[in-house]
């Protein structure tokens, strides 16, 4: 193998004097001499020229064009941002990036993949406070997607579903309300707060259609209809649907959360004590009923 850069550098250092406090320096140009605001260069008029509104700090409001109809008022209004404060956002995650995460052992394909696992890789982030409602799986890198996974996302399209099912995997679209998302995206912080695990809310009216549709593999859809749709999609895209019930990972691939569940293995109403390593479950029948419904 050819000598690498670091090898050359370290070999060179063997013949050079000992590196000490007296012979180290910053990269050239890193240390800039600060220009004091005094005298001719850097000072005097401080970049404001002679007289005028700029020098006298008497500015006109931004966009003002000395009385004529300003540019930002000339054009007709357009409902670009109508309802922006209500619209849900789903930051995209491409199939290429997902494949890369799997190839570099950031994601464990032997277990179901959740929003928690995707955020824990460190290569993807969700900000629930910015109206982000989860992960959207996009079709970029669809042709090279080779992994068999059980993945749960919040939004996706038909070609993506096809790509995942072609490889023998399963995909579900599930809705999480913002409170659940705060818990999901920072699990440790949430559990340390000592709050009981909340129950996941059902989707709002404009999202129910999406999540009850078997075509989207919605978590509220009929599983038998989903089976049918899997076959339909296989025929549409022209691949043989792998027999999932004969797969040794069948149990893992068909693992799903309850509609009210946020974390795998934990039910709403439970309090997880990380210090004492115990879980506290509600005993009051009223509470139990509340968390069950």
């Amino acid at each position: 193998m050819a000598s690498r850069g670091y090898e050359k550098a370290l070999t060179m250092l063997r013949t050079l004097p000992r590196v000490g406090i007296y012979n180290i320096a910053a990269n050239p140009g890193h240390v800039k001499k600060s220009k004091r605001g005094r005298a001719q260069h850097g000072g005097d008029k401080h970049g404001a020229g002679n007289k005028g509104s700029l020098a006298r700090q008497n500015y006109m409001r931004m966009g003002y064009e000395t009385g004529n109809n300003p540019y930002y008022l000339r054009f007709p209004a357009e409902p670009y941002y109508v309802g922006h404060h209500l619209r849900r956002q789903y930051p995209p995650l491409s199939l290429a990036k997902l494949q890369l995460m799997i190839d570099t052992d950031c994601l464990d394909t032997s277990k179901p993949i959740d929003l928690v696992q995707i955020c824990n890789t460190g290569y993807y982030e969700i900000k629930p406070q910015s109206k982000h409602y989860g992960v959207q799986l996009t079709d970029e890198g669809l042709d090279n997607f080779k992994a068999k996974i059980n993945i749960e996302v919040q939004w996706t399209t038909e070609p993506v579903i096809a790509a995942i099912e072609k490889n023998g995997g399963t995909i579900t679209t599930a809705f999480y309300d913002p409170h659940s998302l705060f818990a999901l995206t920072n699990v440790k912080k949430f559990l340390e707060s000592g709050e009981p695990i909340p129950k996941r809310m059902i989707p709002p009216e404009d999202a129910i259609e999406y999540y009850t549709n078997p075509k989207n593999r919605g978590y509220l859809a009929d599983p038998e209809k989903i089976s049918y749709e899997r076959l339909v999609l296989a025929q549409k895209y022209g691949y043989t649907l792998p027999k999932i019930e004969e797969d040794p990972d069948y149990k893992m691939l068909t693992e799903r959360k309850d509609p009210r569940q946020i974390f795998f293995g934990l039910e709403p109403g439970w309090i997880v004590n990380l210090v004492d390593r115990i879980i506290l479950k509600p005993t009051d029948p009223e509470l139990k009923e509340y968390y069950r419904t």
Partner: protein
Amino acid sequence: MFRKLVCRLIRPAGYPQAVARFSSVQETYPDEASKASQQYFNTPMIVERKLEFPTKDGRSRRAWVENIDSVEERKVGMIDLHPEIFAVQPRIDMIWENARWQMNYRKVNLVQVNSRAEMRGGGRKPWQQKGLGKARHGSIRSPIWYNGGSAHGPRAPTTKFYMLPMHTRLFGLKSMLSIKLAQDDLHIVNSLDIPTNDPTYLLDLAEERLWGPSVLFIDDTDLAPENFAVAADSIPHMTIMPVYGLNVFSMLKHDTLVLTLAAVERIEKQMLFFMNRADRAKFGRKFLTSQV
């Protein structure tokens, strides 16, 4: 440097002299080391140290493990060092950044110079506005006056505190460790148990082994063996630190760096963890003292 050369020439012929302190591809080291051991001393050998998180191409650096219980050097074994910590491209600029940060972040400037309001006097208008042919003034302590107040002077207390990003600090440590290993200034000892608490023991040891006058000892814990603590205490140019005290400035200041085996394990584990954290995003953001 010259002494080192001379001493090398005087060494007996059979001595394993051609052993470089580091190598990228060496298959015969364990045999050579064991041969040396069997030849001269019948002590148990540390033949290899399996890296917990090896690199994909399997490369590693090797270094001798020495003893400290006698003044004369005795090789006790040879271990593998992680190349991503002990053989990185040495970034002198990162080292400079670290040194500059260490020197400055603690500084608090307590100097304060009076402004025109704080100067004694200067409340009265010195002379009337018009009629005298003199320049118009409002106060004898205005900044344009001799002995007047300072307009933009130092106002105490001002800190020079800033946090260097985590990865810059890691880079500095990695670079420094690599440089120390490359320049033969890194020595690994099995422990810090010395037979006496006499400071001359350590001085003789350093003299014999050609360790630079200043030596930095890094141990795993912050409790040193008694003999060593007493001996090193009276020597100002020999410092002992626990692993969490390892820093770029100290490594630059001290000529030789001596690590214990336990310290090497700890350093590697800790640094590799920080280099490969999944939540590295939060360390890339600006450091806010209000959200520590």
